[in-house]
């Protein structure tokens, strides 16, 4: 039986349980119209349904995990398995082929020696599937019956169902912690290895970045692993230039859409802007490299900057800024629209112009949302690589001149990880160290941001 069929079965059982329990709750009420149920019949339904679903799904999960092993054991015990080659990939492949043929996933076997195993597989699978199905049904019915018998008019089904909801909520928030932990772990070991080859001092404070993944790994030249220009490039392109574009454009767009534009226009324009976030970055990359960068260069030349190049941080930052406009505009739009109408009325009635109302009342009240949008936008900009390499080149320059070519931490991570170097080379390992340091930096920034936002939040009502 395929997992999806099992799932459907479990769901079907759950639905039945739900209906039955709900009917039972109604019957309490019908039996004694005066009785006030402690919870709505629907909650009784959910309570029993959960008691059916959770055990059934658990059994299905466990069985799915152990069944192949059990089937395998039983097939290997079969005399037909004696002719199998000893351990090794060939043996595995024969077993897998026979299994596939037995389940009907494959029309036949490729290796004729495996044919003898099809029947034993078919038999074992049939047997264990039956056992699994029985176990599932038993679990479902046991859970269901236990729960069903607990139903009483004064049974607090709601509290219990809500407790289950709360567990789900907590688990959902833990995903974030686990992911953070996972990232930390997947970065930290390789980072430590890297720091065994290049000292953290050289790495963090060096100003020359030119790792050579093809050079001999034993002869590391720590002076080529100075990551400072990368961090500077990241901040300059992603957090400064891109934000100079995205914040005003995004915020003003949001303001215009919520406060000035007619609702009809807003309905169309807001999703239209959101397309900008979904245009694949290759497109932005070509746009940046072939349209914007030459434009920037030509303008710079006409302004008298003789050596302006075609690859500039400015071009990359500008295009990146456009890409992330929707992060700012949509989030700001939502938060501004959510400020209660009475705040607006209050200000307008004082004789404030719309612009004063927006700047002094609405934007401060919507600030948490706007800040969150900007933070998301910065995050997105930091993570972007394609635009950087296509428009800003990949040279690590520590310079304040926006017309110079620059590169970012993220691009270097991608380049090192997807490049040709071998995985024990410090150049490839440096990607982990870069990721790790970036992770720590953003973590710190977020701690600070949390404090600051808490301070400045203006709660209405």
């Amino acid at each position, binding site marked *: 039986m395929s997992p999806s069929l099992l799932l459907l079965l479990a769901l079907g059982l759950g639905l039945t349980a739900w209906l039955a329990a709900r009917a039972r709750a109604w019957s309490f009420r019908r039996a004694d119209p005066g009785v006030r149920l402690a919870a709505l019949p629907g909650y009784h339904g959910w309570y029993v349904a959960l008691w059916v679903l959770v055990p059934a799904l658990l059994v299905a999960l466990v069985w799915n995990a152990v069944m192949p092993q059990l089937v395998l054991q039983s097939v290997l015990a079969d005399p037909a398995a004696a002719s199998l080659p000893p351990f090794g990939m060939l043996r595995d492949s024969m077993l897998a082929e026979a299994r596939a043929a037995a389940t009907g996933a494959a029309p036949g076997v490729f290796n004729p020696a495996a044919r003898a195993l099809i029947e034993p597989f078919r038999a074992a699978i049939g047997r264990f599937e039956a056992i699994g199905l029985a176990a599932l049904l038993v679990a479902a019915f046991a859970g269901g019956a236990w729960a069903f018998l607990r139903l009483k008019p004064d049974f607090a089904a709601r509290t219990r169902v809500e407790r289950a909801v709360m567990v789900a909520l907590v688990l959902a928030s833990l995903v974030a912690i686990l992911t953070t932990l996972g990232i930390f772990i997947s970065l930290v070991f390789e980072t430590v290895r890297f720091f065994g080859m290049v000292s953290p001092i050289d790495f963090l404070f060096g100003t020359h970045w030119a790792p050579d993944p*093809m050079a001999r790994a034993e*002869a590391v030249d720590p002076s080529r692993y100075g990551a400072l220009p990368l961090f500077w490039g990241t901040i300059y392109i992603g957090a400064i230039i891109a934000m100079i574009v995205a914040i005003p454009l995004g915020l003003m767009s949001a303001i215009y859409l919520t406060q000035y534009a007619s609702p009809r226009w807003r309905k169309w324009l807001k999703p239209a802007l959101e397309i900008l976030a979904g245009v694949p970055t290759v497109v932005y990359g070509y746009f940046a490299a072939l349209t914007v960068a030459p434009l920037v260069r030509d303008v710079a030349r006409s302004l008298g900057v003789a050596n302006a*190049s075609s690859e500039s941080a400015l071009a990359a930052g500008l295009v990146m800024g456009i890409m992330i406009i929707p992060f700012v505009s949509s989030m700001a739009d939502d938060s501004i629209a959510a400020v209660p109408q009475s705040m607006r009325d209050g200000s307008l009635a004082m004789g404030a112009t719309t612009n004063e109302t927006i700047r002094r009342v609405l934007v401060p009240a919507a600030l948490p949302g706007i800040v969150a949008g900007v933070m998301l936008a910065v995050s997105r900009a930091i993570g972007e690589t394609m635009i950087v390499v*296509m428009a800003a*080149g990949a040279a690590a320059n520590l310079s304040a001149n926006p017309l110079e070519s620059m590169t970012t931490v993220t691009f270097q991570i991608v380049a090192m990880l997807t490049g040709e170097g071998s*995985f024990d080379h410090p*150049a490839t390992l440096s990607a982990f160290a870069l990721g790790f340091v970036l992770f720590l930096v953003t973590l710190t920034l977020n701690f600070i941001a949390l404090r600051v936002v808490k301070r400045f939040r203006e709660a209405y009502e």
Partner: protein
Amino acid sequence: ACGGGGTSEGTRDSVRAVGSSTVYPFAKVVAENFVRSNSGFASPIIESTGTGGGIELFCQGVGANTPDIANASRRMKASEFEKCQKNGVKDITEIQVGLDGIAFASKKGGIDMNLTPEIVYKALAANPYGKPQTAKTWKDVDPSLPAKPILVYGPPSTSGTRDALKELILSKGCDADAGMKALKDSDKDKHEQVCTEVRDDGAYVDQGEQDNLIVQKIESNPDAMGVFGYSYLEENLDQLNGLTMNGVEPTYDNIASFKYPGARPLFIYVKNAHLDAIRGLREFVGEWAKSWAKDGPLAKIGLVAATPEVEAKSAEAAKSFTPLSPTGLK
């Protein structure tokens, strides 16, 4: 079909190849032809991870979870071979599938000159012959060249093409100087640095692995020069102009005969342990052998066929799967 749990058992019904982005387009064509001429086999899965990443995956061990073939635009390194051995990937067949040339090109009617490895080295090295780089224009490198600014778009340090550039051009240009040759014997690391480090002041622009972008950028800038695989030059011959190296033009024949200095071999590495277990693996390798000839389908898309001797050796390897011996690996 649900692959049976996470046990050691497990297989794949399709061949899986990973590795070099240079070999990738050729491997794709081979895969396509393989499916056509062998109906009944699932279509192979070809992934472009870069040579290093590919060999890393390849050497993770034996089993359905690891690739069967690693495509490489350079030979496997001794250290990589060791790693393979350590992880139980004992027998590996090395097959050279052809050659690739790195070509220097510019826009038709744009900057044109006869390059030599020495000129390239002097123009692109971070510290030519150990001295600080001061050349701004080609004229600074060699008075006979035009006074145009040096602007070369090329592959990133993480790519095999760059590795080839270093090995085939820069090192040669560097070693033309006697002092450097001496340095090679006294201080190998220093020599390598001086000879292969590329300047990063904007004269050499690392363009990621976006070769088409390089083509477009030099098409729109007559003063710029691009470095990329020969196949890109061939496809864009109507717009671009290959620059001569030592007076030799980057053409198919010149690369095949190694007259043009920028030619390098391409390889595939086959995991022998998988030969019987993965359906179609032998046939897929056989398809390579059918395709790499001078008039075969791969040549049409820019693969340069190896010399007949090498080709014969490879064809033999693709049949007998003689394991690679580590002697001679660097």
